[in-house]
């Protein structure tokens, strides 16, 4: 099945920038076990097609959210863009060049923060800067790290270790670390998924504030409709897995800077929200029903 490429246009659609990200026919198949030993022990499984021919173009400096039912391969897609996982077919290109593995042009914010416990806040950020730019003077590295610590509002916590921080503070370090290497594209994999609702709302506001200061291409994986509506220019809704694909792409026309308190006063807010809810509940129901019906083993 070949789907026509979906295109996301930003206000500067005509402008061709170096950060143009393009996903061409990306599929991901996790091979099943079919060797004789697995068959004898009844452990054989069929190939699992996680992603089927995904096509997506993302214009520079756009905030794109990817939302879909659980198990739809959102994280798999993000890992492919990050270069941590190889697509089975297809390719991801940045400015027309196919990516060959991970690179510092893409910063990643992880769901579980992934801060090194033995490094302080400053050292965690400086580790990223030094890895990408080893020739930079240490004093300059520290100055840049300090700048990003201030950007995420963590001044005073420079010498703390991650176990002394709350989840929200840890993720702010994660965001500072991802931004400190000045990537063209920021990839966020459910960055607020492990946080409580109040902290999550606070960090969403922080991301909105930071994005107003440093406009970059951002790809955000999320489960939250409100989060997607607050932060995104475009929302990519995915179908359920296996063989997940892009169902629809929504434009989010709200003016910036946005505020969570006044966002729902925009005339399009409730319509967009209802559409997303309808899509997600339909897909989630289908996922639940298929789990009941389909046997796990081949």
């Amino acid at each position: 099945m070949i789907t026509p490429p979906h295109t996301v246009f930003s206000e500067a659609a005509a402008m061709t920038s170096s950060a143009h990200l393009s996903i061409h026919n990306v599929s991901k198949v996790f091979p099943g076990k079919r060797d004789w030993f697995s068959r004898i022990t009844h452990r054989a499984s069929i190939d699992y097609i996680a992603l089927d021919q995904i096509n997506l173009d993302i214009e520079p400096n756009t905030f794109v959210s990817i939302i879909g039912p659980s198990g739809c391969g959102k994280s798999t897609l993000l890992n492919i863009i990050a270069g941590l996982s190889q697509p089975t077919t297809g390719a991801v290109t940045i400015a027309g060049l196919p990516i060959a593995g991970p690179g510092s042009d893409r910063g990643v914010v992880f769901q579980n923060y992934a801060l090194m416990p033995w490094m302080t806040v400053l050292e965690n950020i400086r580790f990223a800067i030094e890895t990408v730019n080893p020739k930079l003077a240490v004093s300059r590295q520290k100055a840049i790290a300090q700048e990003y610590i201030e950007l995420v509002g963590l001044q005073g916590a420079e010498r703390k270790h991650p176990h002394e921080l709350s989840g929200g503070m840890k993720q702010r370090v994660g965001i500072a670390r991802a931004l400190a290497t000045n990537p063209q594209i920021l990839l966020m994999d459910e960055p607020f998924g492990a946080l409580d609702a109040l902290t999550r709302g606070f960090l969403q506001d922080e991301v909105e504030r930071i994005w107003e200061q440093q406009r970059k291409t951002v790809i955000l994986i999320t489960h939250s409709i409100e989060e997607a509506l607050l932060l995104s220019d475009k929302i990519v809704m995915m179908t359920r897995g296996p063989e997940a694909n892009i169902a629809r792409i929504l434009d989010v026309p709200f003016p910036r800077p946005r505020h969570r308190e006044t966002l729902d006063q925009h005339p399009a807010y409730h319509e967009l929200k209802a559409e997303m809810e309808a899509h997600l509940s339909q897909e989630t129901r289908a996922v639940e029903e298929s789990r009941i019906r389909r046997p796990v083993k081949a």
Partner: protein
Amino acid sequence: MTNHILQPALSRPKPFTLSTNQKAILLFLAILIVTLVFWETGARLELFSPLMPSASETFKDFWFWVSDPFFDYGPNDKGIGLLLLTSLRRVLIGFTIGAAIAIPLGILIGLSDVASRAVDPFIQILKPVSPLAWLPLGLGLLKNSESTALFVIAITSIWPTLINTKFGVSNVDQSYLDVARTLGASRWRTLTKVILPAAAPYIVSGLRISIGIAWLVIVAAEILVGGAGIGYFVWNEWNNLKITSIITAIIVIGIVGLLLDRVFGLLQHWVAFGQRL
């Protein structure tokens, strides 16, 4: 570190309430006193073997050894502190040799699946062997009791450190490795800045087990090779039928073992940074 600030849940103070710690100390003292009284009366009433000294005699002898630990009146008449230093020196040298082999080898087999599978049969077969079985081999090869003691301690120290290092290196949290990969870190930088610090708590816990076993083994090794040290002292005093000295040695060996364990416990806490093992 957390501060235990105990605040009474009720404003009305209850009479005679003891904390868990206070209760434990009282029970500890009770057990100690009952044991000592049983020992003392049993020895006085000659309930035990005639060799068995009373608690008070043992305490007197214990005080003799502990009050002047560093006298030296010849090869078979040294203070207990000097004997302990001899044994500790052997344990630390042997342990250092063992760690110097185990940690690099553990890192290597932790990083390489092929090397790990290739070396695993050797580890699995040699690990369960009693360290003392190596002693005659050491004597035969090295023809020297001092080197043999070090050899046995080194062999003993290898296994727990090797296995823990391998486990720590091969089980680094994937997300730390993903961070290093997304930043484009070199293999060397990933190893020194990510894998080794992440594995450090496991390596230190391996060293902690190793030094504990090395301290167990040194006494037995010194009984067999002789010459010097706290183990030789235990055997020598047995030949003199001085049970009080043997009991003194047992207590002192236990205290030193406890201190060694605590030192590595502190080191473990120091490299863990709040990670739970």
